[in-house]
Structures are given as C-alpha cells and as structure tokens.
C-alpha cells in the first residue's frame, strides 16, 4: 500500500485577476517521481508556486495536503520546514551571503536544530563534488554572477543538503547543456529514496530519458488533461501537445 505524501484537491489559483489553475487534482506517493508537462502558460509553474503558497498567487479554491497536514494556507517558510523544497526556474541572486553560510542557516531552520560546522562543511563538500561544482563556489555570494547552469546546479545542491520530503523541480532542465542535464539527473537519483518524492515540471523531455519516471501529467489551460506512465512523455515528444486539443 503506497503512502500518500502530497495530495492536491480541486485547486483553483489566480495570478492577479487571471485564472490560471482551474481545478487541479494530483496525488503523489512516497517513492514516486511525477512529471508535469505542458505548453508555455498552461499553469505548470503556478502549480509549483501554489504548493509553496507564493503570495504572488491567490488560491481561489481547493486544498493541498502534505501527509496529514493541510498546508494550503501555511506561510512559505512553514511549508518549507514541513519538508517541501522547490528548485527555482530563475534562482534569485542574494549579494552579501555566501552559499555555504546561507545553506547552513537554511539547514538549521529547516531541521530546527543546529548542525555542527565541521559536519556541515563535509556534507557540503561531498555534494559539491558529486555535482562537479568547483569548491570555491561555496564561498561565493548566493547565485551572484553564476551562469544559468551554475544556478541550477546550486539549486540541486540545496536540495541534497536540505533533504526535503518533496522536491519540486521547476524547469530545472531548461537552458542546460547535455552534460549539465546529466549531472542534475544524477543529483535527483542520489536524492531519491522510498520515503521521499520528486515533482518535475518541464516542457521538454530530455531530462526524463535518464530518470525512471512513475507518472506523467499533461497540464493544459489550467487542468490536467491526461495522466500516464513514462511512455506518455515519449509520445508527447513525438507528436507535441496538439494531440490533447
């Protein structure tokens, strides 16, 4: 019997006056990798942002349940502390705080207990090696002057260090070259276990070739119009989204 991690029920979300999500239902169990695909503007990123309750979006109806907790209206930081992580499509640059200091601070906040400096540094170093990041990046200001690819790797690094229950990857693969996509995929594989889950949001399929995907959901015009297995992604790759119109 699979254990439910996240359940989205009949979710309606507006951005300003504009209706974006029009009744989304989605259930993610522990140990699963889900993918939301869809054309530009279909509401993929809105779904990710709504789970973390980004105040830039307004929920008009529906519920989001994480394990047994209703997180629909919790603050973003509370949701993060309950174990939800999002890799941003466009990670913010924060001058004046180093990657290392930021992540240690964040790890303390997410786990609610202080981590020893030495232990943390070792863990960070290990993950940076796995992601083929140069060690000096840990002492650079958070995302400042990072290339697009470096920013995305830095998001995956944060995912590995913070070790959430649910990792949402919003267009993490976009703008990456093949090598970087492989490294990101490797990062996801390292993170993944039977007690957590991944929700990948993408509009292309490259990243899906090297991952074992359980479910693919097709989001069009604010609704999930089809759910299938990994094969659905290949079908979309071949035929495009027009088959759902």
């Amino acid at each position, binding site marked *: 019997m699979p254990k439910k991690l996240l359940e989205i029920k009949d979710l309606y979300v507006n951005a300003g006056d504009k209706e974006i999500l029009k009744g989304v239902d989605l259930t993610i169990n522990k140990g699963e990798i889900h993918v939301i695909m869809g054309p530009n503007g279909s509401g993929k990123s809105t779904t990710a942002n709504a789970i*973390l309750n*980004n*105040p*830039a979006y307004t929920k008009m109806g529906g519920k989001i349940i994480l394990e047994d907790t209703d997180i629909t209206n919790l*603050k*973003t*930081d509370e*949701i*993060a*502390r309950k174990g939800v*992580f*999002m890799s*941003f499509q466009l*990670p*913010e640059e*924060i*001058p*004046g*705080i180093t990657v290392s200091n*930021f992540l240690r*601070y*964040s790890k303390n*906040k*997410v786990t609610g207990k202080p981590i020893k400096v030495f232990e943390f540094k070792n863990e960070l170093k290990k993950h940076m090696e796995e992601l083929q990041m140069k060690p000096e990046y840990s002492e650079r*200001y958070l995302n400042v002057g990072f290339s697009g690819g470096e920013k995305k790797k830095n998001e995956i690094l*944060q995912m590995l260090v*913070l070790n959430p229950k649910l990792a949402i990857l919003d267009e993490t693969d976009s703008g990456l070259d093949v090598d970087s996509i492989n490294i990101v995929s490797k990062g996801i594989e390292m993170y993944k276990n039977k007690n957590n889950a991944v929700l990948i949001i993408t509009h292309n399929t490259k990243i899906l070739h090297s991952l074992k995907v359980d479910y693919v959901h097709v989001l069009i015009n604010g609704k999930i119009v089809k759910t299938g297995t990994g094969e659905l992604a290949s079908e979309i790759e071949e035929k495009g989204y027009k088959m759902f119109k």
Partner: protein
Amino acid sequence: MKTELDEINRNIYDIKNKDDYDFKIKKGLTREIIEEISRQKNDPEWMRDFRLKALETYNKLEMPTWGPDLSELNMDDIATYVRPKTKMTGNWEDVPEDIKNTFDKLGIPEAEKKSLAGVGAQYDSEVVYHSMKNELLAQGVIYTDMETAVREYPDIVQQHFMKCVPVTDHKFVALHGAVWSGGSFVYVPKNVKVEIPLQSYFRLNSPESGQFEHTLIIVDEGASLHFIEGCSAPKYNKVNLHAGCVELYVKDGAYLRYSTIENWSKNMLNLNTKKAIIGKNAQVDWVSGSFGSKISMLYPMSILNGEGARTEYTGISFAGKGQNLDTGFKVVHNSRNTSSLVNSKSISKNGGTATYRALVRINENAKGSKCNVSCESLMLDDISRSDTIPVNDVRTDEVEFSHEAKIGKISDKSIFYLMSRGLSEEDAKAMIVRGFADPISKELPVEYAAEMNNLINLELEGSIG
C-alpha cells in the same frame, strides 16, 4: 507578530545617568556666554579671541537653505558647555563610577585591552580619560585631549586649528569655533607606523545640551595611523545638538584611515564637519557608519592637494522612523594623477529618509586623475525615502570619471526564495539587508561590524507589519 514598535529598545545606548555636572553653562549663545566658557576652560588669550570672532561669524551666516529642515533647532534652548564632575585622568580607576559604568557597558575599556593602542573618552563637554601605550609614546606619537594640546603644543595647534576647516565654511562650523570643547589631538611623527588603532569615544549624557568636540590629527610624512571614533547618547524628549569638527592633515606619503560609527539617540541633530588635506602620494580612507540621530548632515571631505594623492570613502547609513540622514562625501582633485573611490550604501525603512549628497570637483590642474562613485540605496517599504543628489564639477578632459547610482527595494521574489528555504519573512529581510551592508561592514573595525549587525537586527525587529 504584527506589533509595530515605534521605538526600538536600544538597551545600552539608552541608559541615562543623572544630569550631574560640575558646571553647566546657561542656555543660549551670547558674547557673555562665550566669554564664560572661555574663562571656565582657562583658554589662552588667542583662543578666547578666536571664539569671539567665530561667534561674530556665526551671527553673520545664514542657516543652510538646502537639506533637512532645521527649524526646530533653537540655540536659546541649548547649553553649549557641560563639564562633568571629574578631571581628565589616565587611570581608568579614577573615572567616577556612573561615567565608568557607561563606558564599561559600551565596551570601551575592554576594546582598549583587546585591540587598541590608545583610548580617549569624552563625557559631555570634557574628555574624562585618555591613555596610550608606552611604545607609541617612545616613538614620539602624541595622543591627548584637545585642551592639553592647546596648553602644551600651542604652536602646532595654532598653526592648524580651524585652518583646514575655517569658521567661515558654514554656520555650524562657526558655532563650533565659538563653543568647541573636548576632542582629541593626534600627532604621528615622520615614518612612524602606528599598527593598531587609536579610538576616541564621545558620549553626550546631559539633556538640552550640545557636544562640540574638536579632533585634530596630523600624520607626518611617511607615517600611518588608523583612528576610530564612536559616539552615542541616551534619548531625551528635547533636541540635543552635535556639531563636532574633524581636521586631518595627512602629509606626503602618509596614510590615515578614519573610521566612525555614529549611533546618536533619535533626538540628536548631528551637524558635523570633517575634512582632510592630503599630500603627495598620501592616502586617506574614510569609513563611516551612520545609524542614529534625528537629523544628520554629514559630508566628510578630502582635498587631494599632492600629486598622486588618493582617497576612499566607504559609508553606510540606516534611516528609520523619524530619521532624516543626509550624508555623503566631497572630494576635490587638486593635483595630477589623484584618485578617489566612493562606495556608499543607505537603507531606509518605516518612513525614514536617507539621502546621498555629494560633490566631486576635478580641477584643471588634476589631469590624469580618476574618480569612481557608486551609491546604492535600499528601501524596505513604500513609506521610506531615498535620494541621490550628486554635484559633479569636472574641469578637465583628461580624467576618468564614473558615477553609478542604484535605488531599489527588497524584492518580493527574493523574500519568497529565502522563505522557501525555511527562513521567516523577518529572517529573509534581515539576511538581504545584512547582505546589502556586507561590503561595508567588512570595512568596519570588527567589534563595530558585530554592533552593526546587531543594530540591523534591532532595527528590523517589529518593522514587519
């Protein structure tokens, strides 16, 4: 969670001592009052005449017609001289208990032990403690209060006193010339490198009074020095006035770093004047942190008189509710191949106003000079203000000049990003503000950098509504 605090508990800064003085001049500004101050201070004749002439200048000059509104300042309500109940001493144990406690809490004696080569401490109008390590004494370094300098080094003082900043500069410098009291005098002989800093700390305890300390520093050829000044006061309901004056003479090949952390209470009008005259291949670096006061008008100035002279200004100001901090930097390039570098940051919140006001003048004779100015402002809400008012007067083509100004707000996207990593909204804002200030806090003396971070935390608490 949503409580809005008008006044942040500034804890140690706000501890008031009883207004217990040896002598407090009556309020106001008349010839008789100036003569009385001069008598109380045992001035030599030249100094008494100097004060009276400065008063005449003061009466002739107009209030500034620009900048913050100073209409609440009425000199009839201000006592310009308050002598504490103690004599200047070189022995900490001799400082009276309540004054000693104040400076203890501000960490002054501890800093002296740990990281300073000498310390001066002024309480109201007089310096109550001054000391310096013996090694420096042996090298011929002079570090003492201004009164002692007037008495013991009359020639050198008379040659320099208010020559760099003449009393005709503006009204509050004229006021300073008339009522000045206390401050520090430093002389570093040729080629002497003072490796660890000297620090003077100024504390104004007496209500409805003013502090007018005079700092005169001469760094002789090839010598170097780091001088730190700190200032604070407890809060009263009526206006207090600070009109100090700093004159720096930095001779050929010499180096001076002048660091200031100003944390006056929020009833203080801080109208301070600082200027440096810089010789050939010499350098002055200003590091300035302005956090307190109700109104500040503070524009340190470097005059690059010698070929190859250099100056840097690194400044940060933090304007909260009811504060108008008008700060900046002035530089005159007056010789070939001189250079200046300005890095200014300001933060405003809760309706505070932070203005960067600056002057860059590059004279015809300053060919081959360089000037790079960068100023950034961060506003934490919609009711706060930030302005940049640069005046650039470049009179020769053969220069490199750049000016970059950025005014911004904390972006909601950045806050969301940090909150998605488990930081509360308050933590996220504090992290962004600290990050913004970081390049400047790195330049501050270590204990002050920590203090600045505490202040940012203090100031941000309760600002989230």
